């Protein structure tokens, strides 16, 4: 097992824990934490998939010139996606936390069961 597989495995494990938490927990804060775990796990998986053997960051300078860069750099696309996804994840977590605050102020409970409108 090499490092990439380890990262992928840990990423999948994190996202599984996140899924499990989302499905079993009733406390909104724990669900938010589960979501963050899922988020981080998916980021790890994406970065792991984009890795190229012995690759370095795709930023050109004296040590990495354009002509022989292929084969030396990792895939820039997953890095770009994860870069934005981290910041968006932060904002979405803030949105979920404010929802939790709102639910608590109106129902005096942090259980998702208190939000009856979500049931069908």
């Amino acid at each position: 097992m090499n490092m990439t597989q380890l990262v992928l495995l840990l990423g999948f494990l994190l996202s599984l824990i996140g899924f499990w938490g989302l499905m079993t927990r009733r406390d909104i804060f724990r669900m938010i934490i589960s979501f963050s775990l899922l988020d981080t796990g998916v980021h790890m998986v994406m970065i792991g998939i984009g890795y190229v053997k012995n690759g370095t960051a795709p930023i050109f300078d004296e040590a990495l010139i354009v002509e022989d860069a292929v084969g030396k750099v990792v895939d820039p696309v997953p890095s770009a996606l994860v870069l934005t996804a981290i910041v968006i994840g932060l904002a979405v977590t803030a949105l979920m936390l404010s929802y939790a605050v709102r639910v608590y102020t109106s129902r005096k409970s942090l259980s998702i069961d208190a939000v009856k409108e979500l049931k069908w």
Partner: protein
Amino acid sequence: MIKRFIIVLALAAIAVGMYPLAWGIEDAENLSQIATEYVTDGADDLGAANLVTSVVVTYRGLDTLGEVTVLFAATAGVTMLLAARKPKKPGTIAKGKKDSGEDHSRRTGSELLKTGAALLFPIIWMFGIYIFVHGHLTPGGGFQGGVVITSATLLLFFADSDRKMGHTILQIAEAFSGAAYVAVGLLGLWFAAGFLDPRFLPAGEFGQVFSAGAIPVIYSLIGIKVGAELTGIVDTMRRSAS
């Protein structure tokens, strides 16, 4: 019982689905075709030393515009949820015994924190601006720079949670950067190959700050936008608690 069974079943299905992905993947020896294209032609094409920035700002520029929109929506949601109206429910005072019994007012920051925050605020602020202005040369960019700027404001709020903050400048910065981002994209549509194409400005010398066409402009606008949005979130959360 049946619910637990379904949950275990769903988790098992996800795990089985992921298993070949986790174990089947070897370290790729070669880049995918599109990534190879980016690596070989990206630098000559756009003149940005940081390929990740090229992908974020130009090749997947529309995605980034979408992400910024999601960020805006999340900020609007936070503001709507927290700042819409002050909770003043006369009936709940009797119920909330715990609230009235304990002192929930926040401690002011210590002298050390206050002095440190005042000293560090401009430095962190400047570092954030540095990060997004040099996004096309070094690791970093608008998103990271914006978050760094937000952290400076957060530090100020830690030191003094009742600090007044001007909202006008925040709103102006947010609205201006968002509109200018789209405007620069449209300039690309008129003067270069397509929407968000940065090549309507001269490419400049590879590896310099003023290079890579409009990429630093776009990334700086994204940085201002992200910084303003996240500062807005932090400020809204702080005000709703006091």
